[in-house]
């Protein structure tokens, strides 16, 4: 389960982009997921996100994200109609309840909750995509130019996480064979048993941190001004993907200005497609966002394209 959260090299195009290009593309994706409230736009972004996850061969990772995300989305869909009653289309009115009185369930609140649920899933999908395609080291290298200490701390933490997980598993095994049954006892007793694991992890981490710090000093860390190693190359594919992201952003801004990306949920649901231009713009946005995915497919299956980009 835990290994799905870490980056794994699959050799897909999205993993082989310059960090500026892929981060730019993902930033546009994320911005759009927050920018629009129109259900069609949100659903479209979610679908392209899902397609990107498939292209990035990260379905297993996505499954782990969705397991948590779907419950949260359902919760939003359920809670919103219970809390907001501003809609005009009441589809059910509860009998008088203690403290709450009569609770009205409105169609508008259900639709709004569903749209927010899709937005949540879209955002989670984008995070999943980011963890699948952004190499942590490239990401840190990009930021280390102006915030290298923070980048280094993140790098150390990233490196420590799998090591700590291994250490934890080892400690757990050792304690199990000294008679500790982690499944037995009430919650308080089990918490006490787990706290011992944390003790071990803390002690081991502190000792390890001292050794790491020593190794860093031995390699001139903090000895004076430092430079930054840039190993990434800029290729045509980076330009294409970044341009696609920018294009999607331009289309989105235009849609927002024209009000196509907004949708009235209250007091009554608005018209889904008030103007055909709204759909044309949506197609433009989704098409732009999907361009890197098409390139990714071509990169994998069409050697000529691979040669050229």
């Amino acid at each position, binding site marked *: 389960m835990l290994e799905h959260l870490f980056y794994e090299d699959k050799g897909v195009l999205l993993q082989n982009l310059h960090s500026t290009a892929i981060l730019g593309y993902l930033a546009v994706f994320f911005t759009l997921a927050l920018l629009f409230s129109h259900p069609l736009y949100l659903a479209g972004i979610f679908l392209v996100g899902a397609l990107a996850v498939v292209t990035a061969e990260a379905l297993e990772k996505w499954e782990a994200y969705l397991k948590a995300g779907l419950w949260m989305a359902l919760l939003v869909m359920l809670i919103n109609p219970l809390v907001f009653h501003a809609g005009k289309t009441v589809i059910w009115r509860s009998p008088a309840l203690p403290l709450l009185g009569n609770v009205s369930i409105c169609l508008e609140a259900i639709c709004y909750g569903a749209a927010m649920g899709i937005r949540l899933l879209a955002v989670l999908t984008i995070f999943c995509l980011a963890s699948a395609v952004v190499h942590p080291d490239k990401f840190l290298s990009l930021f280390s130019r102006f915030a290298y200490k923070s980048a280094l701390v993140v790098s150390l933490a*990233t490196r420590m996480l799998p090591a700590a997980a291994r250490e934890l598993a080892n400690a757990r095994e050792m304690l*199990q064979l*000294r008679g*500790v*049954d982690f499944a037995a006892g009430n919650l308080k007793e089990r918490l006490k048993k787990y706290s011992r694991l944390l003790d071990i992890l803390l002690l081991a981490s502190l000792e390890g941190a001292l050794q790491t710090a020593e190794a860093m000093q*031995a390699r001139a860390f903090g000895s004076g001004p430092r430079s*930054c190693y840039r190993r990434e190359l800029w290729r045509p594919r980076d330009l294409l993907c970044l341009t696609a992201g920018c294009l999607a952003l331009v289309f989105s801004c235009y849609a927002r200005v024209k009000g196509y990306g907004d949708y009235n949920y209250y007091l009554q649901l608005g018209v889904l497609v008030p103007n055909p231009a709204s759909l044309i713009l949506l197609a433009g946005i989704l098409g732009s966002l999907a361009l890197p995915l098409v390139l990714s497919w071509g990169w994998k299956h069409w050697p000529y394209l691979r040669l050229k980009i």
Partner: protein
Amino acid sequence: MALFEIENLTYFYPECDTPALKNINLHIEEGELLLIAGGSGSGKSSLARLLAGLIPDFYGGKLAGRVLFRGKKLSELGPRLLNTQVGIVFQDPEQQLVMTTVEAEIAFGLENLGLPQGEMFRRLAEVMGFLGLTSLKQEFTANLSGGQKQKVALASVLAMNPRVLILDEPTSQLDPLTADEFFNLVERLNKEMGYTVVLIEQRLERCFHLADRLAIMEGGKILRSGPVREVARWEAENSLPFLPPVAKFFAMLRAPALPLTVKEGRKELKKLYPSPPAPEKDQARPARLLPVPATRQDKRVVEAKNLWFTYPNGKEALKGVSLRVNRGEFAVIIGENAAGKTTLLKQLAGLLKPGRGRVLVMGKDTRTTALPELARRVGYLAQNPNTCLFQDTVEAELRFTLDNLGLEDGGVIDDVLKRLGLLPYRQTNPRDLSSGERQRVALAALLVAKPALLILDEPTRGVDCRLKKELGSCLAGLVREGLTVLMVTHDMEFAAEYAKRIIMLFDGRIVSDGSKHEVLGNSLFYSPQIARLFGGTVDGVLTVEEGLEKISANGELSPCLATKAGL
């Protein structure tokens, strides 16, 4: 002028009353390979840190005397200049890697030195090419094997282009073949590239022949330093144990020459055996590829039947392993890194459940028996004993096991502490003890439960020869009392000395299983140094003692048994 000159140096770690280094006087010449040997806590690592400038800069403490580098005080060099002159590789590769990928890791030191982009590219290309790391440049450091990690650590230091390379037990966590590969690199760096190398090592048989000079440390002092042969002779005269088995063997024979390598040793041996005798057929049996025959079924302690296991990531770690270990056996599992040794141990301890096949511990199927129940029968010590020490005192650690398993003390804590020499540390925090002592505490915490089967994963890692001897004697004593010991080790000398049975694993399968003479005696590369010395001359010799017995039986030369105990 010597490269390093250390004069009358004494050093105390902060809040310590006893000096870690006492009155050290040492010269290190440019281009030489200095080997430093000594027991745990003898000050070897402190000396390495001193030479790398980490003492006192990183550790603090009090320092008297002076350290000169090319005639200039080390403290006057400044950290940046020092880092470009002296590089250090530590024992644990896991803790010295900072970045997430190989390329970034190697570049880390260069970035710290503020080098321009072009220079960094050049150095990275050269170092990765030299060490064969180019194919791994985008690999996550966390996914590398122990040997690869240590190579990356070496590459990170070499990229900084130091003139002196300090290696603090760099191969203690590597299997014999990977360790040999690492030392081949060190030899090239020293002999072909002109690096000055200061090497600290416990397993001397691997590197004795590489050294120009040898320094022996004890209690923070340098007892003796000088040309290897001269110091080795002095060691032999003073019954010190820091000699490779070949040298130890000839020292015990009081032979006029003191060979340091197998090649030299074989030349000397030819004088005793001018014409090699015909191989003794009964001792040169090939190792069995099948499990030990089903005898003494009533004494069966653990048994694996057609055991298969695949990790969730798809790695098939065990492929049809069948194995039976009887009561009172001392069996050692050997093999390269990632051969499936630790997975097999975890299966036999019940920590992992078979994918296919069965594991029976004292007749109980591990798939259906709860771990707490297995814990009464099996003691399991992982590679890193620190992962089980968390109590405030040694006694509390032992009592923790008893309480969890619902066992009465009945004097067992006293017994175990005494047996493992831990009585003086009864009220000491385990984390304040040395690594060898911590390991004994972890072992004691298992032994109080009086398990029938003791499973140990590389207990000799980073342990000096004296502690190894103590551990081996202790385990041998327990085996005599009926305990079954099953352990993984890369230390062939230890296996040859104490084990009765050797199981060789390769790619998740048992490729050889038999008595230690059958397996180690016939092994191409997993053989102890003495077996290589006697190979083709006298078969069935694995240890110094066995060699001496053969020579005695041959009537050629009477070994001096008076020195035997000392060495």
